[in-house]
Structures are given as C-alpha cells and as structure tokens.
C-alpha cells in the first residue's frame, strides 16, 4: 500500500504549538527516559519521526500521544532542545481536531481570534436569551420558587438540552477515534470479547489517572503534586457536572442548605479551586518545563473555568444570604460562561477527559491482542548474559 505523505505536516503543527520538531536528530534519549514508553508503545521519538516524515495517516491512527502525560523529563534531557514533550502536547491538540468532524476544533486551535469571538458570541446569546426569559416569566427579586427569575425546572431543561448537544458531538468524536485507532490503525486482529474483557480499564483510568501519578519527576518533589491537582480538578469537575445535570432542582432549592446534595458540591468546589489555582500558578510561574509554553486554548480553558467556579460560588453565597437580585445577576453571568464552556467541550482540550481513558482502553485491547497472536519477533534477540 502506498503511504501518503504530507510534507507540510510540521508547518501545520506549528499552529498547534509544536515549534522545534525539525531539531530532533533521533538519539532516542526521550523514549528511553520516558516512564510510559514500553515494548509496545515507544514515544516521543517515534512520533517525532513520523511528524518529520509527514506520515499523517500514521499519526492520525496512533495512540502514543494519548499515552503521554507531559512530565517534561524528555524535554529536559533532550540534547537538541527539540521539546519532545511539547510535540506530544501539540499532537494531542491536533488529534482532537482530527477526531472532530465539524472542523470547529481545528479552527479554534489554529485561530485564537475565532475561538474568543465564538466564546463571546455564545455567551452574549445565552445572556440575552436568559434575560429575555427571566423578565417575561419571572421577577428579578425572586431567586427560587415558581416566580423565580430563572426557575430551576427551566434551567434544568435548558441544561439537559445543552448536555445532549454536547453528548451528541462527543459520541460522534469518540466513534471517529475508535474508527481511526481500532479499525484503520490496528495492526492486530481483535476478537470482540477483548472489548468486554478490557472494559474495566475505562473506569479505572478515568477515576484514578494512575498513569499520570507514575509520571512525576522525582527531582521536583516526593509527592505527586501535578497528579493530585489534576485529579482534584477532574473529580470536582465531573461531580459538579453530574450534580448540575441530574440534581439541579435540589441543588438550587433555598433558602436552607440541602446537605445530602451540597456536601458533594462543596467538595467538588474545593477540588476545582485547588486544581485551577495550581494550574494558573504553574502556567504563570513557568517553573516546570510542561508549563513553560501555553497555547491560547489553554488560557481560554483555564480562564473560563475560573469564571465559572467563582460566579458559581458567589451566586451560592448571595442566594443563601438573601441578596436575590445580585444572586440572579451573578447567576446569569455564571450561565453565560457555562454554556460556551460546555459547547466548546468536544472541540477543545477538555475532550481529553474522554479520549484519555478511551486510549488506555484501546491500548489495553491492543496489548491483549498482541499477546494472543504472539507476533513473530523477527528482530535481533537481546543477548542473554
């Protein structure tokens, strides 16, 4: 089969953040130093090579970028200062754009202006719509109950609609990812029962992110701080998403505090605050190699998240302290940031919440399939001593 080559691939990747791919001279330091690089998946050097050669199809169907958590050790040791870690990061952005059939993700990654404009536009439309709805059906001085400015049953429905749109895109993207990796890129014949056998990998990696924990740089600190912050952020985020999507009416009910629900919301808020503060601090401080280069989408991601968390908390406090008018205004602002955030999900870095565990799942299936077939090893045997 002829291999299609895209000689401009490196240039394309520039806009996704990979700057120094051409510097690599393939000493293999990065692959050797990486804790995740193993017999089955060797990176970042191999991915860098594929990029240099412009093997677009090969990269499109590869799992390697998702197996990297960017600890930065490869970039630290790289003798050519080719930033292999950043290359892997950019490849993840590029893959997100590849999995997305609409082309919106690619547009956002390539153009900061388009992304910011889209976010502002969606925010304004949401704001206008909610204001219109609020003033026609409710009273701005009332926060909950049937006369409320934004009554929770309506917001609940609104959320569910947004959520379904989001899910639709995500499922489509996940399907495309499955097609690219398991159909086009899969070198093994994979029996169907392997999908069932390995399914436990999905929740395992989703909730533990244990591969990230393995990634810590022993030189920096003994505790896995980036992993911990990331896990807190992710768990807080997922909890909050579930609460908002399923338990919104109970969550919004006042004036008392419904502890059985709110305790989760408080825990989730703590996780979100710790996570966002840590990542903003790191991106400003630029102490660690993985936070030295920030793509514009990283900033949009984190800034929107901060606004959501802050407005959410303030709105909650104002509501419980009886300042209903202010609470309603902040609530509008909160929703104005939530809606673009949610709609942006399938087209942004956020989507790795889904792709990472999926990739681990697929990788697990590949590994099993490989063992089943006992691929003939036509390579030089390692001498035994």
């Amino acid at each position: 089969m002829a291999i299609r080559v895209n000689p401009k691939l490196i240039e394309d990747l520039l806009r996704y953040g990979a700057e120094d791919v051409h510097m690599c001279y393939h000493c293999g330091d990065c692959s050797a130093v990486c804790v995740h690089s193993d017999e089955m998946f060797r990176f970042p050097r191999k991915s860098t090579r594929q990029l240099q050669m412009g093997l677009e199809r090969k990269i499109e169907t590869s799992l390697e970028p998702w197996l990297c958590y960017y600890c930065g050790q490869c970039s630290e040791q790289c003798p050519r200062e080719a930033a292999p870690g950043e290359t892997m990061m950019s490849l993840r952005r590029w893959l997100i754009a590849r999995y997305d059939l609409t082309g919106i993700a690619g547009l956002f990654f390539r153009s900061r202006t388009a992304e910011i404009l889209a976010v502002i536009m969606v925010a304004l439309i949401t704001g206008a719509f909610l204001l219109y709805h609020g003033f026609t059906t409710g009273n701005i001085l009332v926060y909950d109950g049937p006369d409320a400015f934004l009554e929770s049953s309506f917001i609940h429905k609104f959320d569910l609609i947004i959520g379904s749109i989001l899910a639709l895109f995500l499922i489509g993207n996940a399907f495309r990812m499955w097609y690219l990796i398991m159909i086009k890129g899969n070198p093994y014949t994979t029996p169907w029962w392997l999908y069932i056998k390995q399914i436990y990998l999905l929740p395992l990696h989703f909730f533990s992110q244990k591969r990230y924990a393995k990634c810590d740089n022993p030189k920096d600190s003994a505790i896995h701080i980036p992993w911990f912050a990331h896990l807190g952020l992710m768990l807080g985020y997922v909890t909050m998403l579930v609460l908002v999507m399923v338990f919104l009416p109970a969550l919004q009910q006042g004036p008392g505090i419904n502890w059985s629900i709110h305790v989760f919301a408080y825990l989730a808020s703590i996780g979100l605050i710790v996570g966002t503060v840590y990542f903003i601090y790191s991106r400003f401080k630029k102490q660690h190699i993985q936070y030295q280069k920030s793509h514009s989408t990283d900033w949009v991601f984190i800034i929107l998240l901060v606004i959501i968390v802050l407005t959410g908390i303030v709105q909650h406090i104002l509501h419980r302290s009886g300042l209903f008018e202010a609470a309603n205004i902040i609530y509008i602002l909160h929703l104005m940031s939530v809606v673009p955030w949610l709609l942006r999900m399938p087209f942004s870095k956020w989507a790795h919440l889904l792709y990472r565990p999926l990739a681990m799942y697929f990788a697990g299936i590949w590994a099993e399939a490989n063992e089943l077939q006992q691929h003939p090893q036509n390579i030089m045997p390692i001498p035994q001593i």
Partner: protein
Amino acid sequence: MRIGVFFCQLDETKKFSIESVAKYSANLPDVVTVQILGVNPRLVSDVLSGRIKQDNLDRIVIAGDTPGYFKPVFTKAMVLAGHNPKEVYLASFNEHGATGDMALERAKAIVACATYAVPFSLAAIPAQNPVNHTTLIIGGGIAGIQAALEVADADKEVYLIEKTGTIGGHMAMFDKTFPTLDCSACILTPKMVSVGQHDMIRLMTYSEVIGVSGNPGAYQVKILQHARRVDIKSCVACSICSDVCPVWVDSEFDANISKRKAIYIPFPQAVPNAFLVDEKNCTYIQSEGKKCGVCVKKCPKECIDLNASDEVIEIEVGNIILATGYDVLDVSKIPQYGYGVYPNVVTALEFERLTNASGTTGGKIVTKTKQINKRTKEEEWIFSVDGTPPKSVAIIHCVGSRNKKYNAYCSRVCCMYSLKFAHLVKEKIPDVTCYEFYIDMRAFGKGYEEFSERIKQEGTFVVRGRSASVAMNDGQMVVKGEDIIQDRVVEFDVDLVILAVGLIPAPGSEELSNILGITRDTDGWFSELDYNGNPTDTEKGGIYVAGMCQSPKDIPDTVAQGSAVAAGVLRSITSGKGIGHLSSVSLSEIELRAKSIITL
C-alpha cells in the same frame, strides 16, 4: 565615472557600524550614490535598473559580509539599464577579514579598493618585518613534538614549552591508535626521545608562557619556569626518592585511577627522564621546611633541592606555534550517567589507562574492587589486578557532545575510540558482551568505515540510539536506551560503563588567547585565519595553531597539522621576505596604493 555603493547584509553585523562605512564611502572620489539596503533585502532588478538609470551609474559596488549573494540581481539590473554589466564589484567584509579591533578601518579599506576596482589583496600589502630564526612552541603533545622536530630538523632553533613535567601529552596515555591498532607509545616515544636529544630543541617542561610582546617576526616572550626541585641533568630516575616519599596523591597521567608520590616521574618513558616535586602535596614545602625532606637525604645523586624557586625567563622568537591540546568535559555535570555515583562508570581516558599495559592493572580490564584505605579508614573503589573482569560492558557515545546543554559540536574522535574500546574489551575478555550506544557513527577517515564494520563483525552489539540513563538495580548496573533500528526499548545489565566524553579546549586557553592577542571561536577553540585556505595560521602574523587546540581532531590530522605549521614557520624564516601582517597597514596606505595601481 559615476559609482554607486550598495550595502546588503545577510545577517545583522555587530562587528562595526555599517553607517560609518557608508559615510566614509560617500566621500570617496566619483561615488555619487550610497545606499544601505539593510538585512536580507528583497531586491528586484527592474527597480534597481531604474535607480541606475536615474543616477546614471557606471559602476556598482556591493558591500557586505557575503556580497556575492546579491551580484546576479545587480548584474541583471546593469544589463537592463544598458550599462556595462562587468562594472559590478564586490566588497566582501568576510573574505578580507574585517573582524577584530581593526574591523571598521578594514571595512573602509575594502570598500575603497572596490570603488577603485582594485583587488583588495593587491592594495593591502603589509610591510615585512625581519624574522627571528628562533621558534616557540607552546604545548608538548604530539602536535608540538611533530612541529618541533620538523623545524629543528631544518636546523632552526626551537623552544618547546610544556606545562607538565613531561612531553607526550594525551597520546602518551593511550593504549592503541585507531584504526590500525598500533601501539600508541611505540609511535610516540621515539619522537619524544628525539625531542629530548635534539641539538636544536630547547625543551622547557613544567613551564608556561606568562607574557608576550612585540611584533610578528620578533616576539619577546616571558616564560615562567616552575621549580622542578630536581636537577634534570644529574637525576638518573632511580626512584629511590619516590620510594621513601610518604605522600600519596592521584596520578594525573593515569587519569586519577592510580596513585603516585609527591616526588614522582609521570611515567617511566618521560622526557626529560627525571623526577619532579609536586609542591602542592609535598610535606616539606607545605610545612615550609619543618617536616619531612627525607627524599633529599636518600638521593644518591644529591640532585634534589626542595628550596628551589620559580624562575622567569625571557626569550625572543620570530614565530609562535600553539599546540595546547584539549581537556575532557567534566562528566559529573551530566547526572543521568551516574559518573561519580556508581564506581564502575568510567570515562574514556580512565579506560584508556586501565587497558594500557603500563597501567595500574598491567592492562587487565577489571571492575573496581572495594577496599578500606589504610590511612583514612574509609571505603574506596579502586582498580586492582585481582579485580574481576566485567561480563558485560556498555560504551556510550556522544556524552556531552552534540548536546546543546554541554558541547554543541561533535568531538570527532569518540566514535572511533569507542569502537577501538569494543575491540580491546573483546580481545582481552573472550566471553564478554559488549554494547555500543551511538547516535550517528562518524567513521570518516581512511580505513575507519572498514574498522567500524570489523567491530560489528566481531560480535559487538551496536545499538543505534544513545542511552539515556545508567541506573543501579539490586547492585547491578542497568543501561537503558532506545534501539531505533530494531524499534524497541532496551535495558542491558552491565558491569562496566565507559563514557565517550566530549572534548573541551585545554584549561588556560582563554588566558593564553589574551596574552597572545588571538581570538577563539564560540566553543573556545583557537580561531584559524581561514578554515579552508589557512587552517593553521591565525589572524596575527607569526602565530600558528596546530592540533586539538584549533578543533577536535584525531592523531593523523594532528600530526599533519604539526608538520603543516612547521612549513609555515620555515617559509617565513627561509624566504627572507619576513613576516608582515595586515594589522600594521593603515587605511591611508591602502588607499594610496590602490590609487597608484589605477594610475599604472
């Protein structure tokens, strides 16, 4: 004649201000147009021809670092304008050496010559100084030895200055040379002896240059001769002094893998074959004569004088040859290989001494053994004859070389000596497993590629992919790397790791370059005048570079350069024309001569 001068640069020049050269050229006769086109200008011949027509230019001068790059577009513009396309002249700052202190003056002269259409080299002829027939060679390694013998054999007097106690340099430390696997000492020691016995060579060991003044052809050199404290003429190297000396220190000649005394001879074949005292470690000198002094009492020839002091000698020479050699990078700066942490990680130079038949183990390749130091009561790892030979050896190439964090350049010899090591290891330990980790195999010389193939045939596992780390797992060293050709990550258990460490300029190069007034490149090696045309001359007349101090190179190239500098020196002495140097020519002189050439 109406002349237009155009300044075009490919890069920003920092050596001098283009504006001041432009101002100067505007005042040259017949120059009507001066324009600075800036860095990497986009030139269109149509536009230029319009300019040429407008100013009615008969001659164009393109000035810049590499003006030839822009010549085609100007030539075309001249044709389009209907003028003579042959009247396009280049004023190349790079080619005629507008660098250093004289850069601005030189650049002006280059432009002036171009406007007169006179080749710069015809106009800029320096006055020739008479040449002192004595030559100074700094550095007694193989490059200095070769140059000294060549010049001295032509019956010209040579001063050979060496910093350490013996000549021979690094080559004396080596076991074998690549690719022929000749014994290194067998090639070197006869040459060393010739140097020691030559009538025309004044050998000054344990000395260094501390000051140079004067002009090409007549340099006054100040040499600091450290007190050797042993009389060279009467010492017979009986070694009774060192037998009784109580102080043990690391032996520099043995790359610190063995010990020597404070009164010592670097190695048995040293030239001059006499002992010397290491004043920093001698108890007598450090206690200012209060303690020890036992060697003085025991010496049968009474040739030790521990109270001798350093001397400063002044000599006058015509030419100076620099052959200061190199040093190896400090590997402990590179943490991932564990040098200094794991006992059996050694540098190439250490291994070279280990495998050398005159080394501490008599040439037996062993791993280090732990022993208790009798005096300090501390554990230490040493190479001992009773040590166990390694079952597996890993040789890691490019350690600190081709790495932007340490040396960005290739050290050029490491690939070949690493292959040589693999051969030596295989030769001496038959059932050993040997791994070579490399990035690119640079087997560039005569017979080198064949040598590389031979080593692979001998059963060395050559892994393409430099190893990333050396680790210790349950007392077993593990080298991890990516095998790129076989597409796998490999981890090998090894007993001995040899690091092919990158080379850096010899310590004191910077000081020496200041003393002599010559430049060094960004990596610290001495700059040659022209890499292709004059690889052994420097910017300063009568000063030459040979061997490693110019850039890393192997023994054949070093010897060749040693002979090449001798040719330069002898040419200056025997031609009777003297040595001139452009720095002695002023701008007005060049202008005057250029004008006189036109009128001819």
